[in-house]
């Protein structure tokens, strides 16, 4: 399997990224994840700079959650991984379990998708936040209690001082997700991984929670890896975007560039399938287009995984998977799109 990214000097890999003085905070190279009977992530590479928000976008089952868990080595036993994950120069895949535990929760925080099940139902939310502080910051439980109240206040939970002894079942979904956020940022991590942080919430709560997450990112100067299937979220909160399809990154660009001109046919399809509320379209008067077919079975396919659903696919697309290569201001994995074809490039969807 080819690995074009690792061969390139770092500076050319990320057109459109913000300026940085040091190396990237997180550098993922040739990551693959295999569950028994199913190859979920195939040889992907990306990086995250200090303080930036990278969104990993794709349909469910495209491997984005597997990617996020792989970064922290939280995959279930029996899962095979390959590749390199460099965090501040430490290879997370090769460091020992103890060193890894000193990074988890301290340098990297994780927010899970389902606030209903991500909190232990038989322990108070305060204890669950405080135990990270006790573990990493060497606080006593009493000190941790005070700090926890501050954190609850930071995530805008009303009456924070009194919520320490509440159990998860006393709280609404939105409140629980705030608790999860407080837990993730409790030790001032450099990176927070948020796996679909708002999917399980009411639409009205989604923007509130994301706004909170973004303001905390700025306030605490963390980087954010935002895993989502929601392009609206991406457009509003991400600096850069990596679009995943069937375990591979098919396009990677600055958020603005991607929305301006999606290059990969799959990205184009995603844009078209997204309803924009701001331009007055409504499904009743404008047909919501969708991508024909469904995510191809990941096993056994030889060529471009998207080819069977792609209107522009050529014979060559079925033979080998396309490499992710620089194209104009971004990286794209599509033979047809990057070919200096006779037809001039044209944007299919404009803003």
């Amino acid at each position, binding site marked *: 399997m080819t690995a074009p990214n690792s061969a390139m000097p770092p500076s050319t890999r990320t057109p459109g990224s913000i300026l940085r003085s040091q190396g990237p905070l997180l550098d993922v190279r040739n990551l693959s994840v295999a569950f028994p009977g199913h190859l979920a992530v195939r040889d992907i590479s990306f990086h995250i700079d200090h303080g930036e928000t990278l969104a990993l976008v794709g349909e469910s089952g495209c491997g984005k959650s597997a990617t996020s868990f792989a970064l922290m080595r939280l995959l279930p036993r029996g899962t095979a991984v390959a590749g390199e994950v460099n965090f501040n120069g430490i290879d997370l895949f090769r460091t020992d379990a103890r060193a890894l535990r000193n990074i988890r929760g301290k340098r990297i925080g994780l927010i*899970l998708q389902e606030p209903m099940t991500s909190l232990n139902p038989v322990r108070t939310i305060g204890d669950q936040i405080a135990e990270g502080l006790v573990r990493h910051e060497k606080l006593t439980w009493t000190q941790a209690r005070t700090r926890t109240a501050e954190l609850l206040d930071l995530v805008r939970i009303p009456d924070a001082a009194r919520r320490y002894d509440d159990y998860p079942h006393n709280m609404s979904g939105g409140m629980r997700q705030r608790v999860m956020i407080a837990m993730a940022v409790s030790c001032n991590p450099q990176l927070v991984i948020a796996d679909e942080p708002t999917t399980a919430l009411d639409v009205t709560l989604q923007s509130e929670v994301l706004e909170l997450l973004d303001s905390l990112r700025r306030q605490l100067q963390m980087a954010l890896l935002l895993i989502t299937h929601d392009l609206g979220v991406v457009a509003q909160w991400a600096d850069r975007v990596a679009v995943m399809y069937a375990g591979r990154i098919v396009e990677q660009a600055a958020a603005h560039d991607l929305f301006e001109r999606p290059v990969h046919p799959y990205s184009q399809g995603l844009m078209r399938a997204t309803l924009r509320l701001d331009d007055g379209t409504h499904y009743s008067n404008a047909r919501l287009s969708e991508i024909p077919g469904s995510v191809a079975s990941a096993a056994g396919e030889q060529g471009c995984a998207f080819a069977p659903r792609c209107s522009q696919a050529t014979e060559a697309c079925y033979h080998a998977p396309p490499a992710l290569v620089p194209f104009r201001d971004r990286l794209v994995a599509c033979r047809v799109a990057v070919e200096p074809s006779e037809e001039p490039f044209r944007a299919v969807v404009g803003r």
Partner: protein
Amino acid sequence: MRLLSRAGKSLSRTAIQALPVVLGIVVLNFLLLQLVPGDAADVIAGESGSATAETMAALRKQFGLDQPVLIQLANYLDHLAHLSLGFSPRYNTPVGDLIMSRLPFTLLLMLSAFVLSLVVGIAFGAFMAAFARRWPDRALSLFVLILYSAPGFWVGLMIIVLFSVKLGWLPSGGAMTVGADLTGLARMGDLLTHLVLPSISLACFFTAVYARLTRSAMLEVERQDFVRAAEAKGLGPFAIQMRHVLRNALIPVTTVAGLHLGNLLGGAIVVETVFGWPGMGRLALDAVMARDFNVLLGVLLLSSFVVIVANVLIDLLHAWLDPRIESV
């Protein structure tokens, strides 16, 4: 506070629910026992050897056995209402006294076996879960499955052979050394050494039940999101098991433990026989043999009562383990 109010609620609810159950048990058992061929008069007369029709009738009249079944039932319920369990023709004592002299021994045996099986079972289960599907788990699982499969009383006999006959460490039967006439602490110690083997024998099967349940409950809990969240916090495996997994896993274990209390009492019958332990189980068995139905009824009633009370305690334990219960 929460537990206290819980205790009150649980008690009153149990009382309301238990009363019809207890009454049902009494009536059902009473009628059932009427179906048993023969009565106490037969047995007593048979044993004394002089079974004239007149003495039989006199005996029956004395114990009220000559009256119609419904009258007998009414009499029994009347006794019960006055907190009396009736009179035992066989032992020639009030049934209440008889049971009260045996009850402490049965409760002692049950309690020690229960605690032993819970503690060891949960420890085994936690160990197996920690090594799930690796060889320490497989080895202990097999051992536990053998405990689960072997008749408890037979295990009792085998440990008598080992610890009592071959090694001579522990007494093989009875509740205290005959004729030793000990007092105070020495008496206590004597009782405890006599308690060890019967407790192990009774606990075997239940240890296996709780161990298997703890293992599967812990593996189930380990798959929950909050365990992944705890790992993401950087907690070590031990802290995760103790703080996050075990307590959640104990909830189903205590539920099943409550369901098994009746079985524990049933098992005690055979184990008491093996070890000559002077408890209610043997009393019940003797009562069946002697057709002494007042005693049998009393034992049945009281064991149901023990099960009900124990379930209230389990309920409280449950409320302590699971804060969600309060809101239901």
